[in-house]
């Protein structure tokens, strides 16, 4: 399991009081873990701080609302961690 997933799952567990063992790379943040948009702002704040990035939540939400992307593309944890890794790599490039 990636260190990114370990860090993100710990953030989600602590922010939303969800047992760590319930959080898997296949978990959908909204459908499976029941994380709402306000909790996700707290999660984004913690992720931004932990990884030194800014998750483009508004852009992602707009893409989902316009049908250009599926929620799974951003809010399934494995995919989210992939996006985080991309943002970290882009920052250090």
């Amino acid at each position, binding site marked *: 399991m990636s260190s990114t997933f370990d860090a993100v799952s710990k953030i989600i567990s602590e922010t939303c009081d969800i047992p760590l063992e319930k959080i898997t790379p296949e978990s959908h943040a909204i459908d499976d873990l029941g994380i709402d948009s306000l909790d996700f*702002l707290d999660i984004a*704040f913690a992720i931004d701080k932990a990884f030194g990035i800014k998750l483009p*939540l508004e*852009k992602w939400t707009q893409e989902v609302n316009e049908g250009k992307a599926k929620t799974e593309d951003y809010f399934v944890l494995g995919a989210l961690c992939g996006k985080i890794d991309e943002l970290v790599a882009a920052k250090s490039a």
Partner: protein
Amino acid sequence: MRLETFQMITRVIAFDAQAKTLSAAADVPAESPVFEGHFPGFPLLPGVLMIEAMAQTSGWLILGMNGITAMPFLVGANNAKMRDFVPPSTPLEVHATLIGDGSGYAVTKAHITRDGKKIAEAEIRFAVKAFPDPKFAQMIREWGGRLQFPFDQLETA
């Protein structure tokens, strides 16, 4: 302050875009219908309105940092502490520092002082959204004018 209309800030004292801080005066009025119930014979500024004062001060800070392009809406307060009673006719100062901002959110640390002594504090979270209507943005600018918000510093922020 006009407690019954939730206008918690009397005027903006200082805005520093580099330091990401804003301070505001918040003068507790001598009389308000709020004091009739909170509490009869022992009037006190409700603690929840101290949080609102910190949220509004933080809100002006966030507006200043984004050039009044998006509106912060209070969504959470963590570690809020009210350390002392605040009776009517008390001049307060409210201080806010931006500690995080990202895509659609902002987080501040705020505190209230009386005569330099800290009497309340909180970490406050906001959802930051585009103004739903240009009239809303204009209303906020007019409100800022009444609070003596330093718009001249906004241009260089």
